């Protein structure tokens, strides 16, 4: 359908006015981040999967620009260019269009996103507050029967940090957390000891005794350096592969611990007991304690965490989040539809140029999907 009719437009505006009223009443200042953004900033952070869905074009000078596929990064850029001190507390809300080439049902290529971003002084209680505001806003717009799913990437990171294994394994497991199949394969490889399968570079690893092997091999085979990776980068990965050969396999107990954790699923209030049964190591225990604390803050905020579902797997598709994550679904004629989501992303502002790490949480509502559910 090419555009919205007067009735559709008015219904959407009414709905979104109700959402924004909740946000503004809570003390969030409404900003209007730029619609046209430098393409690099999105594409360097998201990789080719998002790029394939982003409207990218060139300005007359040849610089790559894009229509924003999401409002979080534009809100962060707004903050970095307006705030005197990027680490000081700031509370923003926004309502505006975002653009993506469609890839699934109920995803029009231009849609309006309403959201919150809270930077600076954001502790666990602020996480409860953001979730509460998202739910209140959806209810103010008329939504009922909302289903909330929670996840916490901080728990996984802590568990992994406590389990003894080479740092390079930890790094690779963390990296694959987002892809369940690849994660399982990697875990299986580590548990089996190094992969016995020979590849085309096995002869090079056979020769590898120290960092000089790289140079020797390149010289002997008359291979020039190209491709923008330094000799040191290549050598250090070869050294890792060499070290992997004599590395003790990941023992079965440790593998089981990781798998047991990832299988945890249930009502959020039942989860603390399940979490404690997994491990009692240091960083992990701290993360478990903050999970339990968060549930208390949910109650304080007037939420009912008994009705929230927790899933240790959840969050796998949302790569910039660093801790607490949530998703809210509503029932439609076609089954449950994700209408809002959010979480903690403590590394995005520093990644975008803030002088230091700035804690941040936020959420966004897909207003057209909400309207479709309410219609």
């Amino acid at each position: 359908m090419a555009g919205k009719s007067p009735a559709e437009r008015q219904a959407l505006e009414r709905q979104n006015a109700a959402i924004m009223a909740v946000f503004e009443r809570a003390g969030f200042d409404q900003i209007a981040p730029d619609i046209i953004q430098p393409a690099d900033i999105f594409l360097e952070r998201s990789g080719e999967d998002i790029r394939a869905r982003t409207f990218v074009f060139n300005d007359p000078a040849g610089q790559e620009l894009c229509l924003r596929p999401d409002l979080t990064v534009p809100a962060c850029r707004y903050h970095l260019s307006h705030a005197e001190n990027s680490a000081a507390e700031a509370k923003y809300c926004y309502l505006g269009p975002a653009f993506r080439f469609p890839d699934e049902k109920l995803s029009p290529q231009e849609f309006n996103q309403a959201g919150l971003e809270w930077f600076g002084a954001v502790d666990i209680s602020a996480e409860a507050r953001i979730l509460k505001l998202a739910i209140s806003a959806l209810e103010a717009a008329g939504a009922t029967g909302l289903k909330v799913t929670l996840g916490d990437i901080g728990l996984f990171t802590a568990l992994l940090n406590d389990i003894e294994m080479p740092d390079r394994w930890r790094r690779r497991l963390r990296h694959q957390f987002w892809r369940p199949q690849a994660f399982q394969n990697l875990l299986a490889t580590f548990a089996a000891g190094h992969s016995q399968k020979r590849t085309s570079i096995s002869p090079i690893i056979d020769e590898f005794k120290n960092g000089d092997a790289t140079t020797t091999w390149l010289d002997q085979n008359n291979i020039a350096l190209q491709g923008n990776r330094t000799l040191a980068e290549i050598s250090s990965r070869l050294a890792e592969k060499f070290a992997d050969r004599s590395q003790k396999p990941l023992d079965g107990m440790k593998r089981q611990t990781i798998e047991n954790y990832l299988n945890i699923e249930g009502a959020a209030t039942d989860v603390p007991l399940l979490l404690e049964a997994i491990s009692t190591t240091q960083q992990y225990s701290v993360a478990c304690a903050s999970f339990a604390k968060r549930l208390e803050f949910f109650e304080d905020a007037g939420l009912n965490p008994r009705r929230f579902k927790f899933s240790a797997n959840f969050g796998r598709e949302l790569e910039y989040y660093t801790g607490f994550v949530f998703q809210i679904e509503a029932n439609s004629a076609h089954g449950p539809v994700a209408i809002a989501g959010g979480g903690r992303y403590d590394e995005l502002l520093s990644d975008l140029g803030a002088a230091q790490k700035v804690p941040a949480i936020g959420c966004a509502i897909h207003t057209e999907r909400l309207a479709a559910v309410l219609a």
Partner: protein
Amino acid sequence: MKPLTLAIPSKGRLMESAQELFEKAGYKIERLGTDRGYRGALVGLDNVEVAFLSASEIAANLKDGKIDAGITGEDLLREAIAPDNQIADVALRLNFGPANVVVAVPECWLDVAVMADLDDVAEQFYQTHGRRLRVATKYLALTRRFFAEKGVTGYRIVESLGATEGAPAAGTAELIVDITTSGATLLANALKILDDGLILQSCAVLAVAQHHKTDPRIVQIVTSLSRIVV
């Protein structure tokens, strides 16, 4: 009956091989008008119009439903039309124009053998250099599909419309996805194919729009061509 439009490559080796194939099968391709005309007829089969187009236009026109059948490279067809899209498919593989679409990285990346290595390198490259690995290619869709299948993310495609194999040396990309027949060009540019980096074993194909698959004229063409193709 509406005339059937069959597209034939308008230049190069593909054109010569296609014409030879049709002649062996007992058809003659006649160009209408001048020698350089873009329309023709298939002598020996009624009600078939021949359109002379470039191989990539043939793939694109099949997708848009502007032609009913055509001879093109499988690489171009798969690039234009996703596998789950039913709009057109290969009716017959023709044994000419063989070429592989492959992922190739600099030979000096001694630590990289498989796609899983590439994913690890992509992550580290971003941490160290603050930007994504760049893949130079003209096969945007094939690359995205294959990399996603292999679980490799965190890269960027740089569209390349010629001399792709030179991109790493020129510094405009770190690796490439390109077509190769003997591998000699890759070797000359100090690039190596990853162990599991074969995306597609391509050759020339006769592709047919879905709704013409059972058209008697198509059936006849396929039958007579398949006798020649061994």
